């Protein structure tokens, strides 16, 4: 046997056939494992919901500004009369734009204004949201109308509802997937920054229903919600229909009104609750 044949020295220009064959075999086997893994991963990966963020395109919508249950625009999307909730750029609400609108309205009631706003559409199922990407520059036009628009509100009584608190900006399209554990931290940031929390209800893997979470007086609530975000949770309170959205008014001082719900998720586990 040649002296150097059976011994590998990396700084030599080439390896003996035994070694270069070993390298080739190892490389091909790893590559095969890698391809196999990618194929299996793609095959078993959880499907993604059909949500959409119209990134890079700005759309103008015209309608009436509402403040309840959240800052939004009553308008027409796809020939449907809907309320489009409005959020800010990044992980923030769009309330500075609302303040600006009020200043420009000059004491006129919001319900008597027709406003044109420009932003980026976020859509899932028949729900549309809009990011006021340009901040104050999102206000394109304000006109006065005579007919005051009043939102239709209907109480549906006390109910207990189980679902997951999501940040709707990401959930309805900016990120996908935007629920459960991998999205929990981001959802906390968004809700903490003023994006209104939503309780999303799932049935058989599909999202079916949504509730804005407010406090029992119908006021916005953010920080108290954070420990419950991104985990299965069950909450009770008065349910109200406001146009095409639902609202759940939760009494945060009543511990019985809230609980973490692990049915069908992680049965034998309890989370110590220290909100």
């Amino acid at each position: 046997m040649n002296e150097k044949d059976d011994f590998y020295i990396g700084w030599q220009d080439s390896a003996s056939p035994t070694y270069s064959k070993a390298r080739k075999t190892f490389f091909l086997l790893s590559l095969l494992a890698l391809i196999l893994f990618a194929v299996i991963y793609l095959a078993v990966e959880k499907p993604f919901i059909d949500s959409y963020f119209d990134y890079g395109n700005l759309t103008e919508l015209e309608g009436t500004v509402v403040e309840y249950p959240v800052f939004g625009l009553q308008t027409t999307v796809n020939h449907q009369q809907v309320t489009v909730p409005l959020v800010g750029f990044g992980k923030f609400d769009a309330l500075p734009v609302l303040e600006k609108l009020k200043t420009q309205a000059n004491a006129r009631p919001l319900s008597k204004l027709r406003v044109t706003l420009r932003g980026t559409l976020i859509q899932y199922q028949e729900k549309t949201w809009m990011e006021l990407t340009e901040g104050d520059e999102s206000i394109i036009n304000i006109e006065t109308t005579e007919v005051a628009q009043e939102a239709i509100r209907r109480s549906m009584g006390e109910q207990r509802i189980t679902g997951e608190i999501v940040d709707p900006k990401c959930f309805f399209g900016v990120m996908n997937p935007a629920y459960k554990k991998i999205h929990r931290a981001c959802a906390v940031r968004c809700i903490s920054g003023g994006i209104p929390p939503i309780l999303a209800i799932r049935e058989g893997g599909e999202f079916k229903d949504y509730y804005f979470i407010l406090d029992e007086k119908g006021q916005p609530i953010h920080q108290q919600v954070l420990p419950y975000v991104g985990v299965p949770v069950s909450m009770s309170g008065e349910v109200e229909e406001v146009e095409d959205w639902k609202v759940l008014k939760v009494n945060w001082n009543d511990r019985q009104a809230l609980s973490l719900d692990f049915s069908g998720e992680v049965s034998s586990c309890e989370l110590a609750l220290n909100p």
Partner: protein
Amino acid sequence: MSVSYTSILWNRQKKAYDLGILVFVLVFSVLFFVGHAVLHPNATFETIFIRNFGLLAFLLLHVVLIIGPLARLNARFLVILYNRRHLGVTMFMLAAVHGVFSIMNFHTLGDMNPIKSVFLSNLSYDSLIHFPFQVLGFLALIILVLMATTSHDFWLKNLGPKVWKALHMMVYVAYALIILHVVLGALQNENSPILFGIVLAGFLLISSLHLLAAFRERSIDKPLDQATAEWVKACQVNDIKNDRAKIVTVSGERVAIFKYNGKLSAVNNFCRHQGGPLGEGKIVDGCITCPWHGYQYLPENGQSPPPFTEKVETYRLKLEGEEVWIHPEPLAEGTYVKPIQLAGS
């Protein structure tokens, strides 16, 4: 170290190796992005991007971790060990892209410093199921940063091979953190027994190879000497092949006894480069040549041939008939010991 080494820092073998890594990364990424475009068109770009780089880093980490025990089990795999550093640094860069992009995606443009947010957005530190898994990835990434920045031989020299090696053993801590990062994060979301099975299989592969390699080396580590012994019997002359060594343990140190040119010499087994096993090396051009990266030492004094300065401890040997005896007390690094002349040569 070897004279021939300096002139060839970037040889064909290294190029072939790095090309292999590049192919690995490209094939996976193309498959992953195209696969998503076809099968999961609703997934957002950021999600695919984050998953692609996290998974690639995780897969490469497995490769990095199986090379060590594979090379100990079968010398042919030394060919993959030689350039493991490039694999490690590539793995770190992929993990860094994944980590930094995750922080940008999930934590920036908000009401808190993004790094603070990694630690404070999910506060369920008291729950296993809800544990903030991103924190685990963050800690793993810090370990990988330390390892990647000290991977150069400059740091090896400054820290000394033993400290350096200890630092780089932290890769196992990083691996444990990453396993938890994946199990408590993505796996929980995906809730797929198949993916869970794959992660488990990876863990079993890595741990069983390490156990197997350790088991194989058990006999080497059985000390020959009692605490008081002066000379101890190491082996028979015939136990050692020509130009090769036998590794024995005396006074808690592994020692390589080489047979070459009808002579015997013993040096400490721990290569001063990265701690490679000199006793698994070979005498090439009259020098002990380390099997890992080819550093060289003269067998009679444990010194690298000039201009290199690495030195290892040497040991005294004596012959009683066909029996090789060793004195357990090491001599200072680089001390000349007259080689034992074998009869009939």
